[in-house]
């Protein structure tokens, strides 16, 4: 399901127009990005948690030419599914 369809469904369910819903969704995305860049964890009950994780730098070898590279550290976004949702999906 793409973004457009998701907005449509939610708009119908909460009885607001699509522009409002899209605005709220954009707001949520901004808030998530904001909080995660502050390294905060966002927990949504019944759904899961969003977390920013730091990955250490590491040395990898290119299997085709044997060249070794130093991959820099990075902070990446991760999502952990909640047990409730996990059991629903099983």
């Amino acid at each position, binding site marked *: 399901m793409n973004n457009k369809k998701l907005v449509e469904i939610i708009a119908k369910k909460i009885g607001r127009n699509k522009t409002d819903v899209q605005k709220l969704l954009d707001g949520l995305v*901004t808030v998530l990005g904001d909080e995660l860049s502050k390294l905060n964890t966002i927990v949504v009950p019944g759904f899961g948690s969003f977390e*920013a994780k730091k990955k250490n730098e590491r040395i990898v070898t290119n299997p085709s030419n044997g060249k070794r590279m130093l991959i820099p550290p990075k902070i990446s976004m991760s999502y952990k599914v909640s047990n409730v949702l996990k059991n629903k*999906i099983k």
Partner: protein
Amino acid sequence: MLKLNMNKKITFPDLINLVAVATDSSKRISEVFLKELFATIAKELADGETVSINGLGSFSLTDVNSRKSINVNTGEEIEIPSHRKVIFTPDKSISELINAPFAEFESVILDDDFNEDAFEQDDEQNAPQSEKEEVGEEVVIKEEKPLVLPPPFTKKIVKTEPEPQPQEETQNSEEGTISDKQPAEQVVASELSNDSEANNDNSYASDFFDEEKSFWEEYKTLILSLIIFIVLFGAGIAGWYFYCANKFAVETMLPNQAKSEIVAADSVITANADSIKTTLANDSVKQEPVKSLTKSVITDTVTRTMFLTKLSRKHYGDYHFWVYIYEENKDKISNPNAVAPGTVVVIPDASKYGIDKNNPVSIAKAQQKAEKILGK
């Protein structure tokens, strides 16, 4: 102050508040929306559908085969049945936003004689050493940059670097990495001194090389080990830097600011590119960007996820100061709540409006101004 509370847990009520504030809507609407949103995503996932959200990423399902495992308590062999699990793939824009403090880093190809054991050993030796340097925090962060930067980037750092000591070191490492790989070609390149950017990079580096050729030959091993030491030292600091989560917030601002400065410096470099032909010109190039950097105007682009408030936090350290960005760009922005993505805004100098994130008076002033702007 706010940013010192690191690694906080944002609960659902917090999230409702934050979304309500960000979208200027009531808490009730925000709550209804968020509940419905997550319920819908969960329902779609349970139905086996993939859900993607613009700017955030996509949630999808994948099958996991059954596998054997051992019950850790009883030691019995058990079989984990095959099941489905949720995979989240973050959108490019949000991962870039989150990775902003490390955005300057790039992968580096290591030399063949680079010893991994030495890397780990030196790393351990360096770790305690770096802990003592708590006072020289800013310098430490800047030294960290040369760690994984490729030669062209290191060059830019040299120009924007205010401290003299790291400058020296980055120059050294620049000579080391470039000339180590292709010393003979570099000399030729400097004599040709073509106009293309790549060749300018070469000639720039080879000017150093010519100047210090005899020196280089004499101390080749010394310099090489120095470079490796700097790299390892940086790696040690990077590790330590993450243990100090509380200090992180203040520091995250640094790379961001440095980045926009680098952008400015970069354009100056290309403008001056043609003049990089002689060793003499080399000196003038080094000074010119620094001079014009202070005069150059910092601009930034508004995107779907980068609003005025966020730009303000990025550049000034507090979101309240968005009013000054708005003030400076009044002619381009009609409604500060709905700035068209892609709008390039001028970021005024912090001193122009007396912006100080540590001064509550300055923040209160910005808040008053915001009320005035939003009220009118």
